[in-house]
């Protein structure tokens, strides 16, 4: 499969894993069948072939080159961070025999900690991308999309890619390093078809609908715990772009007073609220460096 280059769709920890796309499609179809307004939205509005969507596709292609050629070699490895943290702890507090907690408990705890810490750091970096003017220049590329589709997820400036890569390396590295120090080789992940169980559940529950026009809500109570696709769609509106920074969990938004929930509507206006500052992929790449 690797030779045909489609393995990206078959790797369970990728957002575009076919199971997640399929589940998103099923949810979307059911939604369209039962929600008249959404059916109308998709009928009257050009979404898949909108110039913004076409830009997403082109950008996805170009940024793939940049990631492989430039970003990946630059990004710090979480493996190196983990080893550094473990050795630092051993150096500071001495080697300890792995704590007497069953492997099953360690694996569960590690899986949960990775997910929670990862989501927490994602919240804060995402919030910083909005609140720090220099970072907003780059994050604006993502918010310049006026229609949403699963590939909008990848409409991210390479500078932001690097920052999120560092965030990932540091959060996974530190958590793993601490667990390695405390539990040695007992470490492991609870996985479903090879993915962190929480990532899988997040994927199945419509992660790909975050960037879509399907206003899927989880209900008032659950939306205080998990960010629904609709909450993320609200974040893509000008009015609420300062709200709902969460990745999978809404608890950070609730805790730090950036949570926003409202009744589902299918006619949200996405983008920056003015004409898009980018008319080409090239502009999306260089303009953030020169334009405030």
């Amino acid at each position: 499969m690797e030779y045909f280059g489609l393995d990206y769709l078959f790797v369970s920890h990728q957002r575009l894993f076919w199971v997640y796309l399929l589940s998103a499609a099923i949810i979307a179809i059911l939604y369209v069948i039962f929600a008249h307004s959404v059916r109308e939205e998709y009928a009257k509005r050009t979404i898949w072939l909108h110039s913004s969507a076409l830009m997403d596709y082109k950008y996805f292609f170009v940024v793939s080159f940049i990631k492989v050629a430039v970003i990946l070699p630059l990004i710090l490895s979480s493996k190196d961070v983990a080893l550094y943290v473990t050795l630092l702890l051993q150096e500071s507090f001495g080697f300890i025999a792995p704590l007497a907690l069953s492997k099953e408990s360690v694996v569960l705890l590690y899986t949960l900690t990775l997910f929670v810490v990862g989501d927490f750091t994602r919240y804060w970096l995402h919030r910083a991308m909005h609140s720090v003017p220099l970072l907003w220049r780059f994050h604006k590329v993502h918010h310049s999309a006026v229609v949403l589709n699963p590939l909008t997820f990848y409409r991210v400036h390479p500078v932001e890619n690097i920052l999120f890569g560092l965030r990932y390396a540091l959060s996974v590295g530190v958590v793993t390093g601490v667990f390695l120090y405390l539990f040695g080789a007992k470490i492991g992940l609870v996985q479903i078809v090879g993915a962190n169980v929480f990532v899988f559940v997040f994927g199945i529950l419509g992660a790909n609908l975050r960037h879509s026009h399907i206003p899927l809500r989880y209900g008032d109570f659950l939306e205080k715990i998990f960010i629904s696709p609709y909450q993320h769609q609200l974040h893509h509106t000008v009015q609420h772009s300062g709200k709902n920074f969460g990745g999978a969990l809404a608890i950070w938004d609730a805790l730090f007073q950036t949570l926003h929930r409202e009744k589902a509507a299918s006619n949200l206006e996405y983008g920056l609220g003015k004409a898009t500052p980018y008319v080409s992929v090239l502009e999306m790449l260089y303009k953030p460096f020169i334009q405030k």
Partner: protein
Amino acid sequence: MRKVYITLLLFASFWLQGCGGENSYDGANGLLSSGGTDVSEPLAAIYTLIQEDANATLLLAQEVEALVDDVNASLSDFEALRSKTQELILAYKKVEALYVAEKLESSMTDIPVFVEAFSAGDFDRKEPILNELATILAPTNVTPIESALYKNAYKSITGLVYALYEDQNSSAEIFAKVDTRRVDAMRIMIENITAQLEIIVDFYATDSSFLDDASASVTILLNQLAISSNRLKEWRVGDPGGLTQKYLGNSDAQRFEYWASRSSLQAIESIIVAHKEVMQSGLETIANEGGATSEAEAIESKIEELQLLCDSFTSSVESNVDDAKVTQLYNGAYQLQVSYTALINALNFQQDIIEADGD
């Protein structure tokens, strides 16, 4: 035409994304828990090694047992017992280094302490035991020897070594002290050691849990090797060399594990050999399967260096406690332990995924 162009563009993009393996939402992999890596064959080879080490040690214990009855017949018989006991100790060091039984079955936890009291690595605890043994073995002591040796520690290798060497005494000196009481004591000691080794051998022969759950077994084995290398560094080299936090700048050769028999260096080398054999028998393959080839190579290279270092001693380590080579041994053992940590870390990240997307 436009749609064809878009389709081709998307196809090419997927290809590129697949090449990089980036963009995941999350996903450090667990220790050999994904990717369907089959390590049952190398694990079986490792288990065979563990079983063989235990069997060989039991055989040596039985040979020692057979020699005890004639120990007071002649000086050469006494020396033969000393020599066989040395072999037993060195063989047991391998069993101890790879002792995974306690993590497979909790009732096996205390066995190493019953075989060798120094397994706890606490010299402060060892010293009173040796003093008590001196009293127990004294010809003037009228307490029946079976009752006097009531503690497991008295009946362990620690006790047997004391009965055979006391304070680095020569064969002739100790042989002159060998009376019926001491012979009986040595018999009780070796019978206890044999009985404990039989428990270990029986366990490894009958328990298949090591082979049933590969992921758990790799975990147990790697943790055990990291612990073993740390004990090598701390207890066996650092404490006597005055290199640990506890004894910093205060070296004392008597803290060496086999100070009395002057065989601490051989014991250290035996542990290193056990590490080498476990790497060669299957752990190297497991590491390679898990994408940790360089980490495995680092361990093997460190083992090689440590072996060479041991071989470079021209006399016993007990008479060279302040030699720079002891510090080198300490540092080498530390690097070995770090290398195991690196291997555990590398196996945890079979695929070092990078999540580089915003949201």
